[in-house]
């Protein structure tokens, strides 16, 4: 049996989650500090969540394809992004970023303002406040956001197939493999990937709920 869809899926979603984590947390931090254009920037960052994935994929195709600036630049070195694993990773990152960004921003905004203010009067640098106070105190939500982003990246279909295609052994992820198997009338293979994906998603959700629960018990204690 060919395990490549599983490996490609895990590889793309893990790398995408990692990138999404870094960008999402940092962007959430920047947006909470913004005074102007907050709504506009928030809207742009959330767009991939509400747009149909195929539309996101189309945008990516336009901006990464052969005729785009990126595509032309890469062509100089005889390289191309589209229809590669890199494209799959980019697609998963873009689609999962809003989830990461929104959960983290929510966590930052729910932090007690006074704690941040008091940290400032104590002379702590913005950098230290972010690392030692904001991050640790929103850790459970950030973890939940990361798992949500991972699950979304793992299930990515529309944007991926637009920009990375469906090349077996190269860009064919599990969700694409299910589609292909059904199209080809190969029910047993479809069942197999459906089962694997269901298991991974289910485990992810259990882990996420665990983080959520920890957060509630902590909040409960703090009240006493």
């Amino acid at each position, binding site marked *: 049996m060919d395990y490549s869809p599983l490996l490609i899926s895990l590889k793309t979603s893990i790398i995408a989650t990692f990138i999404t984590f870094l960008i999402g947390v940092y962007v959430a931090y920047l947006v909470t500090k913004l005074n102007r254009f907050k709504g506009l920037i928030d809207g742009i960052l959330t767009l991939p969540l509400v747009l149909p994935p195929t539309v996101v994929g189309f945008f990516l195709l336009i901006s990464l394809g052969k005729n785009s600036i990126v595509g032309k630049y890469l062509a100089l070195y005889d390289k191309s992004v589209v229809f590669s694993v890199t494209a799959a990773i980019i697609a998963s990152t873009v689609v999962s970023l809003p989830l990461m960004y929104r959960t983290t921003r929510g966590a930052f905004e729910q932090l*007690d303002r*006074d704690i941040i203010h*008091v940290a400032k*009067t*104590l*002379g*702590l*640098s913005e950098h230290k406040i972010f690392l030692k106070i904001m991050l*640790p105190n929103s850790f459970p939500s950030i973890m939940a956001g990361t798992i949500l982003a991972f699950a979304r990246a793992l299930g990515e279909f529309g944007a991926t197939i637009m920009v990375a295609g469906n090349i077996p052994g190269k860009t064919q992820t599990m969700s694409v493999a299910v589609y292909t198997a059904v199209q080809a009338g190969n029910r047993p293979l479809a069942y197999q990937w459906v089962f694997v994906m269901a298991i991974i998603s289910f485990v992810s959700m259990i882990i996420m709920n665990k983080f959520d629960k920890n957060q509630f018990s902590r909040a409960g204690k703090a009240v006493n």
Partner: protein
Amino acid sequence: MLYIDIKKKLGDFTLDIGIETNKETLALFGASGCGKTVTLKCVAGIEKPDEGEIVLNDKILFSSKKKINLPPQKRNVGLLFQSYALFPNMTLEENIAISIPKNCPNKDKIIKEKISEFSLEGLETNYPHELSGGQQQRTALARMLVNEPEILMLDEPFSALDEHLRWKLEQRLITTLRDYGRTALYVSHNKDEVYRIADKIAIYNQGSIKAIGGKQEIFNRPGNVNAAKLIGCNNISRAKKIDKNRVYAIDWDLELESGEAVQDGLKYIGIYGNNLDISSDMTSKNTFLMEIINKIENPFSDTLVLKHERNESTSYNSYIYLEINSKESLDVLSLKEPIYVHFKKENLLLLY
């Protein structure tokens, strides 16, 4: 030395204040939502005034003219929040240690000193949620004092505590403030607390300071009706000047002789309930026959609700509240007839 002269729009009113104080504890006193906390936040640099100037010990913290607005980190001010705002992810010791630079040679010694100064030994590894309200407050105080701020600002530090804890912690705070000997701002809406803790009082109302001065002066001569109400004067009547020494109290329907010269523009007159005496000498000045309307029992004193006998008004404003010890009150009430009440002229508050 602290100099504040700022304006800031706040919802439906504007904070517009001027304060100058030096090495004293100044209480910012007023009802909730009148701009006291915002004043502290402006000094700390958390909120930005619309215009004006804030100077602390020759260092300009904020100046709209000179376009200076130091970040909170550079102001070296200590701010104690109502909620104490301890960092929940850090132990007591880490909370105190976080603001000390890593390369400070006496770091451990300073932490130890502060922990013993505030009797927090044995709690070093506890997290804030494992500490009692009083311990949390002491931790927050220790954390604030570690960097020796040039000014201490306390925002209703006792509002989150039980009544029985307050008294003990208040005594401790008074000692801390006295030992520290620098300028302090203290926000509260409890008149007794303010009187015990502060040297000077600034009375806030809707974003502006109605009166500022030594606490004795403010309590003895509040000067205007807002201030008088805040410091707990519950006998206030509209008033009219008759001549230099005499005032007509409109609501009470009394003609009173004043201890000090009455200025033009007098609007109200007031007197504390415990400055009214039951008198047997009906011929002396400022003594009137009063009908007893009701008796209100307090834990340690009683309040008699009185009305001048010939006053036919039925408004609550016509009532006069006299405070006395419970025993006397019982005797008086048993008479069930009008009593003579003396208004000491030196205790009358002339309000403009």
